């Protein structure tokens, strides 16, 4: 049941994509329908196959690159479209010229279907029951194919005035793919984009402050730190990400708006002249519908990315105490089953400090003890989803295999000794490690 709810956004996006493909390539309905269904099936099958044969990161990576690549493509098309609307006689880009050709009628639905199918398959849960395991993808395939038919009849009912320009077509298609992928935290591109922007700004300001402006910060009054601090905040990443996210679709809409109306001055009869002008204006207004749709899909994608609808395994930390000798002991079996492959969080209080750490059995079968914090982000901690842990602050996903290794946004490992009855760690080392980590990620960076 939950499976159905989880896949609803992807399936809706898929339906709209097919509708758009049909509208974008009139007269080639057969090709579009067949290749859409084929692509979707290949996508589902391909994802499942690859995720069996290889670590799940491989098919996920393929989908992310495909969607990300299409976004880059959209950027170039958008810039070209705007350029064309202001400078006359700028030719269509090769990709744009493809829209409406027989290659596009077969290729675009196939590729789109493959990505959409892959995204859909990635949303399928791992089930223990082998019958369900087989049934779920089949149901997904059935739904995908039925929705293609649904999209066909919906498209036929749509007003014929709703025209699609090549650039708008690409914008909406890419936006829908981005929306679809953003419904899964593992595929989302908006959060990583924001993160890149934030890191980029961060690095730039850092370089600027340290190397060019003043090697030593002593001249800067503390109030200014407030502003500089803003540049290091999450907001910069978010808003910068938003700009990069929405600009191509906005440029395409702007390009359509800027397109000159046809010249009708040579038509003598007033009524006929006005009729032609009115038709041209109407056509133009209808052409803006698709870019508007793209903007809505992008907004929905950004929203889904910011408020992900995924439930993480994130247990309430258990309070632990140290022995007089300064040793913390966590039993293998006891209140919690330590070796069930799940994240187990603990809280150790000493003085005014509260240290959060977790114990986890990695897929390789080794126990690891780590701080619930990494070396670069604010210590918001981690949650666990399938095969991954997620840094709540920067939304980076860390495969379970690499938990216990230091570096980047990985949880900071804590030395421990494993004995028959459980794990033992040194309280002082733990507290020091926490203090060092938290200090370096909070206080020195302008308080943000």
């Amino acid at each position: 049941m939950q499976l159905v709810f989880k896949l609803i956004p992807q399936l809706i996006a898929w339906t709209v994509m097919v509708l758009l493909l049909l509208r974008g390539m009139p007269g080639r309905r057969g090709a579009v329908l067949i290749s859409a269904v084929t692509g979707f099936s290949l996508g589902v099958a391909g994802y499942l196959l690859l995720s069996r044969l290889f670590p799940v990161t491989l098919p996920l990576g393929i989908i992310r690159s495909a969607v990300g690549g299409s976004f880059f493509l959209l950027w170039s098309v958008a810039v070209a479209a705007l350029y064309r609307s202001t400078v006359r006689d700028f030719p269509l880009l090769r990709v744009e010229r493809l829209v409406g050709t027989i290659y596009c009628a077969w290729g675009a639905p196939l590729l789109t279907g493959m990505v959409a199918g892959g995204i859909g398959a990635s949303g399928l849960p791992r089930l223990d029951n082998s019958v369900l395991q087989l049934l779920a993808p089949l149901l997904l395939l059935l739904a995908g194919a039925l929705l293609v038919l649904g999209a066909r009849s919906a498209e036929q009912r749509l007003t014929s005035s709703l025209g699609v320009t090549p650039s708008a077509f690409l914008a909406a298609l890419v936006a829908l793919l981005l929306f679809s992928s953003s419904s899964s935290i593992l595929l989302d591109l908006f959060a990583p984009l924001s993160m890149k922007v934030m890191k980029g700004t961060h690095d730039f300001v850092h370089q600027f402050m340290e190397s060019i402006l003043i090697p030593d910060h002593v001249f800067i009054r503390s109030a200014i730190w407030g502003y500089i601090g803003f540049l290091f905040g999450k907001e910069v990443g978010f808003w910068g990400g938003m700009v990069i996210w929405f600009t191509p679709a906005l440029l395409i809409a702007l390009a359509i708006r800027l397109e000159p109306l046809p010249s009708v001055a040579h038509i003598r009869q007033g009524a006929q002249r006005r009729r032609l002008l009115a038709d041209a204006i109407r056509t133009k207004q209808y052409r803006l519908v698709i870019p508007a749709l793209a903007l809505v899909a992008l907004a929905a994608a950004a929203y889904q990315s910011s408020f992900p609808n995924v439930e993480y395994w994130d247990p309430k930390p258990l309070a632990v105490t140290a022995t007089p000798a300064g040793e913390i002991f966590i039993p293998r079996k006891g209140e919690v089953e330590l070796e069930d492959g799940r994240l187990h969080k603990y809280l150790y209080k000493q003085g005014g400090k509260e240290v959060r750490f977790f114990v986890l059995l990695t897929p390789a079968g080794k126990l690891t003890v780590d701080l619930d914090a990494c070396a670069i982000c604010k210590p918001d901690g981690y949650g666990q989803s399938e095969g991954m842990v997620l840094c709540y602050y920067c939304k980076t996903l860390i495969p379970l295999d690499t938990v216990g290794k230091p570096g980047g946004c990985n949880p900071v490992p804590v030395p421990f000794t494993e004995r028959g009855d459980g794990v033992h760690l040194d309280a002082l080392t733990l507290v020091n490690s926490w203090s060092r980590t938290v200090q370096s990620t909070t206080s020195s960076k302008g308080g943000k």
Partner: protein
Amino acid sequence: MASTIIETAGLTRSYGDICALKPLELSVPEGEWLSVMGHSGSGKSTLLNLVGGLDRPTAGVLKVGGEDLLGRDEDGLARFRREFVGIIFQQHHLVPYLTALENVMLAQYFHSVPDEAEARFALERVGLGHRLKNRPGELSGGEQQRVCIARAIINSPKLLLGDEPTGNLDHKSTTMVLELLRELRAEERFTIIMVTHNQEVAAWGDRTIYLDDGVLVREERKTG
């Protein structure tokens, strides 16, 4: 031989028990000026409204411009009225708080887009170049009716319908309006169907048909 613009067969319109128009056969060649006469309540307006797409018949065939009007849905009918028909009524139906110019531009707006220069020219053509900025209340009956003519022809209709357009006018204004229609028809070559009570007015047409109780009882072709 001009082509036929209106062709009806068994055209009927009844309101409940009342049959306002009994099965009617009528053919109007393109470019004709047809006068429709008859007593009050004989079905003249009913016929005009059917032909103008303002009303739908109860039964029968109605072809306008070769196309069966009954095949059109409401949108199609509205488009037909907008692009094919111009109508002048006895009551002028001008918007009282808009100027003459704005009233004409309103018709352009509903058709496609307003074009002030063209609307101005249309009013000059009906001899109201000096009355552009006056509201209907500030115009005489004849002038009001001329604004209506400018409004009716602004979208280049093929069919100009008049439902007693001169019914409220004195003799001089009536002649002016009819003269104007004759001139415009010579230039624009539209077809006129004009309902009237008045034999003299009817005589301006090429042909007159007489309705009585919803039945076409007689027709008279102008001689000479």
